[in-house]
């Protein structure tokens, strides 16, 4: 099967290289994890795939016409805005099918009146449940309690089985082990 995403010895960074050369492929129905200690450039590599960070060497190849959804660690700035979860989902075209049951009755509550975990899951769902072939997730378990992580794990597996390709950056080893088909561990980059 042709991969949706291939990284050929990619070195990514912002002003200077922040990762070692990374090689990976990601096909439909597959979940690949990127792990490693803080500062090895996991989020930077994801940002390079999304077109935000700079590629210093190597190449990123995406399948033609592939549609991408990206979740970053930045929480959508909703403080002071009268915006509900239902409106947020409608905005990104998300169907909300992956929402946990305990959030369904909070969909019409303003996002800035929800707990951090509830808001995070809704923001995550607004990305996950949109029509996309390739999903990029950066630390999706931040702010989630144990039930939230368990629900997210099941939902990601369902999404993969439905044909999505998912690339996950996470420092949560248990989550990565539970959800990923393959894990790539990034090593520190020695910048002179």
């Amino acid at each position, binding site marked *: 099967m042709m991969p949706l995403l291939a990284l050929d010895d990619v070195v990514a960074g912002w002003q200077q290289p922040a990762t070692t050369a990374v090689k990976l492929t990601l096909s439909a129905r597959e979940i690949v994890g990127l792990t490693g200690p803080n500062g090895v450039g996991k989020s930077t590599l994801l940002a390079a795939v999304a077109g935000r960070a700079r590629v210093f060497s190597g190449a990123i190849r995406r399948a033609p016409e592939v549609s991408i959804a990206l979740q970053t660690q930045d929480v959508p700035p*909703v403080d002071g805005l*009268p915006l509900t979860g239902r*409106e947020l989902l409608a905005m*990104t075209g998300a169907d909300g099918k992956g929402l946990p049951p305990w959030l369904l009755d909070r969909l019409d509550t303003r996002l800035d009146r929800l707990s951090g975990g509830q808001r995070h899951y809704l923001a995550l769902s607004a990305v996950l449940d949109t029509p996309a072939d390739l999903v990029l997730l950066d630390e999706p378990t931040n702010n989630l309690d144990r039930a939230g992580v368990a629900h997210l794990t099941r939902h990601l597996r369902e999404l993969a089985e439905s044909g999505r390709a998912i690339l996950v950056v996470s420092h949560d080893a248990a989550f990565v082990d539970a959800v990923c088909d393959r894990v790539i561990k990034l090593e520190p980059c020695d910048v002179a």
Partner: protein
Amino acid sequence: MWHELFLIPFLTGLLLAVLLPVLGAYLRLREEWLAALAYAHLAAGGALLGLIGSLPPAIGGVGAAVLAGVGKRLFAARLSGGAGYALMLLGGWAVAVLVAANHPLAERLGHAMFDGQLYFADAAMLQLVVAGTAIGLLVLWRLSQQLLLAHLYPDFFRIRGLSAWPTQLGFDVLAALSLALATMSLGVMGAFALVFIPPWLAFRRAASWRAGICWSLVIGLAAYLLAFSLALYFDQPFGPMLAIVLVFFGVLIA
């Protein structure tokens, strides 16, 4: 009041009282409420420059504000953190005051714009405001979802291979154009008050985005109707009366 002398100014202000609170909601979303004050001052400066350059003041005001809206987008990266709006505000104010101080005709128009003499609005201004309000509301309706997405998920456009700049530029030009039209009739501070206070109050209480827009509209219209009646009854300039009513609403609700 229904004499043409008052009806035309009343309708002009009424339309702006519909457009400005809705526009203000999106400026507040983008944390750019200072833009309203900047565009209003630039429009005042442009109108006065237009007047001494033998152009209709409305053309000068709208032209200056629209140029600033386009220019602001070009220099967005260098003038972040609201610096661009502060420069526009100071530049517009300085030009307006200097031109007014050195030209008798400009002095009279300058006073009218800073006092907010809505009663000077004529049929030509009403026609401009009718067109501006219709276009403004239509554009805001079309851009609404993209503006929300650009604020909440800044990467959304890039990862989907879409360009965000038409939305951003379109909104900047619309805001500049609307504020310029409003400054010509409601005055600098009257226009700013209608942009700032209704959405500020609405966003505190509204249960959803749609409700926030509706409440902005209701508060703006209620304040306008009350201010128009009070200004007419007490024979006072409209701009300060509108600002006082909105400040009263603000204190009462907040």
